[in-house]
């Protein structure tokens, strides 16, 4: 097994990943790779995850009805499984963002003292 890159603290990552995926999908339906790339690009090194951990999250979100999957065509003309945000997913994202903001504001206050 090759050495794996250091990860961000697990607790933060786990709850945040769902929210990040939902946020990513607000830009339109994407396949898994595109979601992974977008998260990498926008968070920089702050959010280094294994590509593999993305998929259980996607499946979980689909089961909860927050995203739905459909087979479509990727930008390269390949058959690809595309995930799309559902109205329920949009509502969930709004709720998560609100919670996150409250949480980070609180934490920031503590650090500011």
């Amino acid at each position, binding site marked *: 097994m090759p050495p794996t890159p250091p990860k961000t603290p697990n607790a933060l990552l786990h709850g945040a990943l769902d929210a990040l995926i939902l946020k990513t999908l607000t830009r339109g339906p994407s396949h898994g790779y595109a979601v*992974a790339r977008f998260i990498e690009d926008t968070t920089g090194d702050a959010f280094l995850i294994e590509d593999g951990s993305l998929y259980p999250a996607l*499946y979980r979100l689909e089961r909860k009805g927050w995203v739905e999957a459909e087979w479509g065509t990727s930008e390269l003309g390949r058959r690809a499984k595309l995930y799309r945000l559902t109205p329920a997913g949009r509502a969930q994202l709004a709720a998560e963002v609100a919670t996150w903001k409250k949480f980070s504001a609180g934490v920031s206050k503590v650090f500011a003292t």
Partner: protein
Amino acid sequence: MKRSLRSWLWRVPLDQEFDEEIELHLEMRTRELIDRGIDPAEARAMAIRKMGDLAHVKATCVDEGRKRDREMRVALFLEELRDDITFAFRQLRAAPAFTIVATLTLALGIGANSAIFALVDATLLRPLPYANPDRLVTIWETSAATPRGFASPPDMLDWKSRSRTFENLAAFTPGVGSMVVAARDGTAETVSRQWVTAGIFDVLGVKPIAGRTFLPEDEQQMAKRVVISEGYWTSRFDRDRAIVGSDIKMDGQLFTIIGVAPKEFEILGRTSMWAMQPFPKTLPPRARGAYQLQVVGRMKPGVAIQAAQSDLAAVADGLAREFPAYNQGRTVTLEPMHDTMIGSDLKTTSMLFLGVVGFVLLICCANVANLLLARATARARELAVRSALGAGRRRIIRQLLTESVVLSIIGGALGIGVGAAILRVAPVLIPAGLLPATVTLTFDLRIVAFCAITALIVGVVFGIAPAFQATKVSASEAMGADGRTTVGGGGRIRGLLVIGEVATAVLLLFGAGLLLRTLMAVQSYDRGYRADNVLTMLVDPLGSAYPPPVKQQQFYDQVEAEVRALPGVADAGWSSGLPLGESVFGEYLFNYEVAGDAPLDPAHQPATGYQIVSPTYFSTLELPIVAGRNFDARDINGGPRVLIVNEAFARSLAPRNPIGLRVTVRPVDSPNDQPITLEIVGVARQVKLHPDDRTDYVQMYTPLLQDPIGDINLLIKPVTGRADALAPAVRAAIARVDRQQLVSVSNITTLEDIEWAATGRHRFRAVMVAAFAVLSLVLAMVGVFGILAYSVQQRVRDFGLRRALGATTGDVLRLVIGSAIRVIAIGAAIGLVLSVATGRLITSMLFGVQPLDVPTFVLVVIVLAATAALSIAGPAWRAAKIDPAVALRAK
């Protein structure tokens, strides 16, 4: 809806779906790395590495996907179910006549079944209302002559102390006696009392609802204490708790009320109170011969009844060796207490009814299935359209089944009402004494649950054939038809259903016929005596106040004189037993042999019943003395012992003339008792002990003067009018003789009522089965009418054409009636074959009629033919009236 569509339309296995998705990801990641200038082979390896533990990821995803699919299927199912149910209700509303007929049919079937289920539940399924009832057994003391005999007190005590498999043993006397107490208004009142041993409440695990129950000390002190029943506590003392501890004067003695037992305890006997049978510390040896106790044992936890049986049998063997005089040849038989309390007759009756209503329900199902089939044919086009629009056959079957289940659930809900109504009137129909005190018919959640489950099953049973039938017609065929020529393939199934209905109805009619013939036989038998308008009451003068023989006999003589002096009394007499009623003693009691003959082996000695009577008994009952003489003034106490025998007894002595013959009698099972020798002075006509006795009962009568007894029936015959109208005057006459109020008078009834009660279970079975049979016949004929009317309607053009081509009205009628008769005849033939095959099953309930009774066969056929004619008449009339011109023009 999109989500559900996806899961239904797209059926690639989850792991393939996952592999394809990951492969795309890897390829795109590899391409990205190559674009960044990494060597292609290395790039692919890096992409895979970046993926992490792929096997674990895959397992998680596939698992998640599976759960999602499952949840979605459930959601989809519920969604479709809701749609189906909504649709079903719309369909049922659109056809109100069909809906009403079908739901009422089902309500009748399910309601009748729920009522019978209540009976079966109470008698067969429900345990006794005590703690751990499966550990309670009845212990019979048995001998060659009595397979289920009672036990003597010393034997019971020895069983208790010597057995190892029982926690405790206790006993009660099977009969309920009576005591005289002061009523609220101060007059003497006779209340029922049962003897028990002190431990009976503990063995059954019954807790008092006030005060306490008996303790072993009460028994040892021979204390005068009683426990009263909840019913008596309520009616006499208004549930006053202060009554506990107070004294009450009974039979002239003071008893202390120590507690109140709840209703469940009345299982032993319907009585107002329980008193302890006096058990002296040392019982005399002959107490071993007093077989009077019904013993109940509570087995230790985990003990099987067989183990307890062999344990007690060993104890009984020991007793037989120690006390050969009384216990030789006696052993024990254990029986679950539930079986003792319910009785085999009630069990078989319950099973009979269950079978009968089961058949009725099947007929109901067949009728509704028939209606559905007819509707399915009419709806063929609608279904074809649905299937053309993409609904699969399974989907349509599901829809149709939902409709039938909705129908049956409505029927079931109404059935609950029908069942509740039947149970409400049931107590009037059920003969007193058929149900033991434990059995109460209640309408509770169990019955509702039964209705619900029955409705569901019934819905599927009657719905499945029509649903499959309806979806068999191909879409193009049904849509192309103009609705006049589609006959549908349902015709054959419908014919078969009606044949089945007729067969079942014939089977039930036949059973009802046999039971009705049995009822007629037990009601019209030759009972031997002529008087039936006779008042009877049980009179029990207190032994200490009226000691036998002199004072007691004086009392009887005075009462008889007072009663005879009453206006309207034609005759009066005394007897220890009543025809068809319970004897004071039970059944065969004495072995007998002719004095001077070589002694017979005790096991083979004939046995006789025993009744003590006054000379006036025979005239009161109008029971002829067919030979010899009646008892008279010669037969005094201390004089030569005499007896009168009945005809069966006399026959057993043939060819000798019984008159003047001397016989020796000895109590059954007591070879060491001193025999008594008596001379036969007369022969009385045979009287039946039970209305359905298959053999003549052997009976002997001894004169009251020579055989004093303190618990005796007074019989009074009026000159004219109803016998029971004399009751108040007779009670007043007894009170004039019994000024101290020390005589209990109970069981006031008439011979007519006793006879009615004695034939009660036959009447109950016959009336119930006949009612169900009539119901099934009506339903079956509705079925015949249904298919006939339908086929006439379908063939209007056909008949019209025939008429136009020269067929006469008679020809058309022959066609219609012929097809109906074919169905009925086949059904009747099958039903009669089934009747022959199953008649044996109810042999034990029959009397005076054979299972293959020809008159019953003939009667069933006549009844069937008559009702069939009614059901055929309408459709045949309609077919005969068809006007060819109108029929052919009609669309």
